[in-house]
């Protein structure tokens, strides 16, 4: 019994949850930007995967993991632009395009791995980002263990989430993004460049999800592995909805999922007499319950998924 309580409230569990949450929270925030501007983004999974691949590619050829991270932002943004081009310019169905993007990302990264490294399963090991310790915080008893030592991308994630919230809710640009997703006609009347706003939001979304991927491949590990995003993009999508299309909410929602996941991992090895299968389901059951409960109350941007044409 003591073991269970220790695991539920343990600092180790919370620290693990922070690590697991990083890629999901980044992608979820990406989803928030895209959807606030009216574009449904199912393609987060593919964007994470491309980001993870680009990060390893960059680190492999330059030897610098930070250049890898930069490349992941770049490729993530490019995939975002591609997605935006299809959904905004060609007015393709957002969901179908997103699903297509995910398949393309999986196929393209696998193919490129075969071409570059002659192996479809995993890339060679590259230089990853080493963990950093924050001088003063690391010496505070509890908080130090929780937040003192992490991959730099974890801290960047926290900063970005806060900055994203500021951008979306405290700046004129954020207001424009939100009104574009709520009522494009009104925004159009006010002279807002709707397509420009949407392109910006979706590209930003790609960059953020790509960065999440970079954390996965260079922050947590130091190689790329086929389909290594393993469903995190879909978790991010759920976190985005549960977090009410708000970066801070997204972080909270992702953290809840990740905490349950971290808990699940520890409960499994404690062997508490509950079937492993049931314990493994925890994060997913929670996702379903939370979404079923949250969707009733949460209201997506009114013009989400619609195509708007000026002067029509």
């Amino acid at each position, binding site marked *: 019994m003591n073991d269970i309580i220790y695991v539920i409230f343990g600092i180790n569990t919370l620290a693990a949850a922070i690590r697991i949450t990083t890629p999901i929270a980044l992608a979820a925030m990406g989803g928030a930007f895209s959807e606030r501007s009216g574009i449904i983004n199912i393609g987060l999974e593919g964007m994470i995967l491309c980001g993870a691949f680009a990060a390893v590619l960059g680190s492999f050829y330059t030897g610098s993991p930070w250049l890898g991270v930069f490349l992941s932002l770049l490729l993530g943004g490019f995939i975002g632009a591609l997605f935006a081009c299809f959904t905004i310019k060609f007015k393709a169905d957002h969901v179908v395009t997103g699903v297509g993007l995910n398949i393309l990302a999986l196929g393209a990264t696998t193919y490129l791995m075969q071409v570059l490294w002659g192996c479809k*399963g995993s890339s060679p090991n590259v230089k990853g980002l080493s963990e950093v310790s924050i001088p003063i915080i690391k010496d505070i008893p509890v908080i130090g263990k929780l937040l003192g030592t992490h991959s730099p991308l974890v801290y960047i994630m926290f900063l970005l989430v806060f900055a994203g919230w500021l951008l979306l809710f405290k700046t004129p640009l954020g207001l424009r993004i939100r009104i574009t997703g709520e009522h494009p006609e009104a925004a159009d009347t006010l002279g807002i460049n709707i397509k420009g706003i949407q392109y910006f939001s979706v590209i930003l979304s790609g960059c953020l999800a790509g960065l999440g991927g970079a954390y996965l491949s260079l922050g947590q590990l130091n190689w790329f592995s086929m389909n290594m995003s393993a469903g995190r993009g879909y978790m991010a999508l759920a976190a985005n909805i549960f977090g009410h299309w708000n970066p801070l909410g997204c972080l909270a929602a992702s953290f809840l999922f990740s905490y349950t*996941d971290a808990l699940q991992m520890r409960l499994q090895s404690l062997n508490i007499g509950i079937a492993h*299968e049931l314990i493994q389901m925890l994060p997913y059951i929670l996702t379903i319950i939370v979404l079923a409960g949250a969707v009733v109350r949460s209201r997506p941007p009114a013009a989400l998924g619609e195509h708007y044409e000026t002067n029509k």
Partner: protein
Amino acid sequence: MKKIRFLTVLILLLVLVLGAGITGNVQAKGQVEGQVAIIFATGGLGDKSFNDSAMRGMQMAKEEYGIEFDYAEPTAIAEYQTYLTQFANTRQYDLIISIGFDQADALTATAERFTDQNFAIVDMVVDKPNVASFVYKEQERGFLVGAASALVTAKTGDPRVNPDKVIGVIGGMKIPLIDANIAGFMAGAGYIDPEVKVLHSYVGHWADPAKGKELTISMIEQGADIVWGAAGRSGLGVINAAQEKNIYAIGADSDQGYLAPDNILTNGMKFVDNTVLLAIDQVLKGKFKGGINVLGVKEDVLGYSKNLLPVDVINKLEEIKAKIIKGELQIPDKIEDVK
């Protein structure tokens, strides 16, 4: 509208070109010593373990018998039947090999349709007259590495080993095959020292190394200093965690020692290459026979690798191995049966 039409044509063209590429690949071979097709498990080549080992077997067969082979790497269970049918349809292969337990349903259907075609499946039983099934006594290699872990975790003076007698094993998914490994691991540890505590958990995914790593860290928190990853590519995360936290990891299926030379204690070896070779050998010599082949330490397709194991541990393991071959040890293949 024009744009849409253009796009449609473009996509159709792409599909045609890619499709032609696949079929062209299958047909452009003449008759040689023997032709074999192999369909890998969804983990794919590059798992540095199971599938790669099967590939090695194919290359060995190519060198030894001069066979030619084609292979397919499905990415989803749903694709197995497509590839199986595609290969069987050409009617030019002496043998089609399915790698991995989850091809069983697809193979059952295909074997019924193509009754003249010889099939083999590794890691699972398909009860058809034209299918040779190769399965392993997984618990035997689990027993060997479990015993090795129990011996090493009690050692002192090694910075990678802590005073707690705790070891762990991480499975990819909770399936009978993985559970047999885990059961063997527990039994092996208990055989050496009943006080050793064995943790076990599952990733729930064969290709999520980040999660494999987190699971390993959670075991290290609970005092584990040796963790065996029997989890496909997720197992690479186990090795990564062991390297980072400087404990011992145990690899699976192939010798993964080169991934972390200072931290891979040993490997739970499954010589899929020898198995593949055995299957091809049977076919080429006209001795192909449908039915179940249960292989283990005795047939030299399961075992351990020496890597960082100390000499006294190796001696003890050889002793155990001899006992297994003689059939003196009863090793359970279900976790519930482990005392």
